[in-house]
């Protein structure tokens, strides 16, 4: 007998499963409707309150957040960020239209820009986000041809460009948006990122930059009428 059959048989025996007991229909219905459970109050904000909760929660977990008014300000913000942190003016960008469309050459002419998956030598990556969640200051990114996952983990500095319209209150809204954008199946990897990499494994003392990025910088585009 295969292990699969043996294990399922053992489970059915332990549960006292009967044919026609309605269990299968119950499972079917739950998976189909995927109802929400309790969503905390703080995940139900809107407008400016939503954006400021997102920012303050992200900052609580050692991310840095910078607000800009328009797309055109992003390249300068990134260049300034590199300068502030004594980083060379070189970034690895996600080959994503939202990032490519930013006026890099015009607004940050000294910035050297490369695209594609991360190389081990890359110090800084710039990526878009799929969404951002205010309740815990969490960014949601996913894999795909325009968004390599290695950009989120290999470089020491991760700059994420988020639009106000991408900020939601609670995780459940992300699931709805993910299902709508990917009706067939989830992308291979969905990363929820809350602050930079950290560890408490040495004497329970928090240290940033264990294996993933040491710094996480969020550039939030809060266009008029966007939020």
């Amino acid at each position, binding site marked *: 007998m295969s292990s699969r059959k043996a294990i399922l048989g053992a489970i059915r025996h332990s549960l006292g499963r009967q044919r026609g007991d309605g269990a299968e229909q119950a499972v079917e219905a739950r998976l189909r409707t995927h109802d929400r459970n309790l969503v905390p109050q703080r995940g139900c904000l809107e407008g400016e309150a939503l954006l400021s909760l997102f920012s303050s929660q992200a900052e609580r977990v050692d991310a840095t957040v910078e607000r800009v008014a328009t797309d055109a300000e992003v390249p300068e913000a990134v260049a300034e960020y590199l300068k502030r942190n004594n980083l060379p003016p070189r970034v690895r960008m996600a080959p994503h239209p939202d990032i490519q469309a930013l006026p890099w050459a015009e607004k940050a002419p000294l910035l050297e820009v490369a695209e594609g998956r991360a190389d081990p030598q890359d110090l800084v990556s710039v990526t878009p986000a799929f969404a951002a969640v205010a309740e815990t200051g969490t960014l949601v990114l996913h*894999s795909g041809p325009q968004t390599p996952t290695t950009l989120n983990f290999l470089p020491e500095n991760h700059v994420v460009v988020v639009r106000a319209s991408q900020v939601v209150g609670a995780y459940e809204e992300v699931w709805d948006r993910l299902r709508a954008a990917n009706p067939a199946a989830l992308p291979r990897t969905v990363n929820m990122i809350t602050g930079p990499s950290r560890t408490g494994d040495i004497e329970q003392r928090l240290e940033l930059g264990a294996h993933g990025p040491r710094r996480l910088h969020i550039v939030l585009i809060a266009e008029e009428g966007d939020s």
Partner: protein
Amino acid sequence: MQSTSHAFKQNAHRALHDPMLQKAMGHVRSGFIDKRVQAAARLPEFDQLRDQAKAIKDHTLAHLDHYLERYEAKVLEMGGKVHWCATAEEAREAVLSICRSLDARTVTKGKSMLSEEIALNEHLEANGIEPVETDLGEYIIQLRKEPPSHIIAPAVHVNKEQVEADFRRVHKNLPPERSLSEAAQLVDEARQVLRQRYLEADVGITGANFLIAETGTSVIVTNEGNGDLTQTLPKAHIVVASLEKVVPTLEDCATILRVLARSATGQEFSSYTTFSTGPRRPEDPDGPEEYHVILLDNGRSSMLGTEFQDMLRCIRCGACMNHCPVYHAVGGHSYGWVYPGPMGAVLTPSLIGVEEAGHLPNASTFCGRCEAVCPMRIPLPKMMRHWREREFEQHQAPAKARLAIEAWAFVAKRPRLYRWATSLLIGALGRAGRRRGRFRELPLAGGWTAHRDFPAPSGRSFQARWAEQQRRGRASR
């Protein structure tokens, strides 16, 4: 791993006299508890979410067969493979044969207690494949050739100076004059050394915090990002998961995630929560080409439908051990197997037998803190009591203890005899201890008085005083 649970008493005795361990355990006593309290206080709905998280798992366990089938179907649809394994041995072999099919020489690993449970590293090493632990805590204990002593902080028993000595011993190619006295320097060095290992690994192995039936997804929750590098860079990603990890939907997963990190480290959310569904898609620029799930039973299916079913709700947050006075005193290694603390005291006898692990459910004061903080509301003390009963029924308790319990039971079942005997005993103790109010030594209570005084009773039993108060109350009415 080889169990030393039968030697709990000797292990605990050694631990209590180990000054390095006692120093390290001080960090557990101070850190985790306050952080959890603060995180819970920041979320007014925390206790309601615990109730819902419990209900989700109860529902899933009651329909586990169907959810596992749905989960499997979805993984297959997404191009992954599911390997059903009834025993630890089957699971080890399944991982090995995947590694062999890829001619793997090194595998990187994210922290997985299930991997410890099936003794995967030893098996891979014995077959010429080098496993490299990448979670900092796991890396440290791998260098020290020790088992983990905590399910989320495996090296919690190790002090900074010991880590420095281990790094100097193993990282021989780095300059010996380098400074390693700060935690940050140790973290940096591990980052540097392991970075190379990620890039050269052929296979990445992670555990799973959840399996989602709706989407065929495995979920890992980490802070370091090591799990992500482990599963993204090599050719294949192997997930080792036990079958009770399944939850129905993304929504259900979100609810449990809201209580997980808060209970574990006191964070509102861990740095990285990663959802993996199948192998990389044809157009993806990175990610693993193969995705395998090792779905392990190893005794869990027979816990269903018994008084131990509730234990299968456990999400491995570690709150029970963080709050356990016994764990604080003796550390995780004393428990002798993979799972320490209260959750280990319940789970270990289920997985390796009460004959081997019978001491563990006895190593509890029943103070109840574990149950009070458990996000899944698992009645841990009650289940430890079940194990004690089983142990007694199976005649495994020591003869002296059995005799004492039987004598007590005889008296307790006869109320008049009980009242007479206790009032006699308490009266005698009360008179003998009247002057000092406590005893330095007491016959039959040497185990107690070896470490502390025994307080002298007031001289009258509770029942006698209660009866008197009732009489007085009636008289005054």
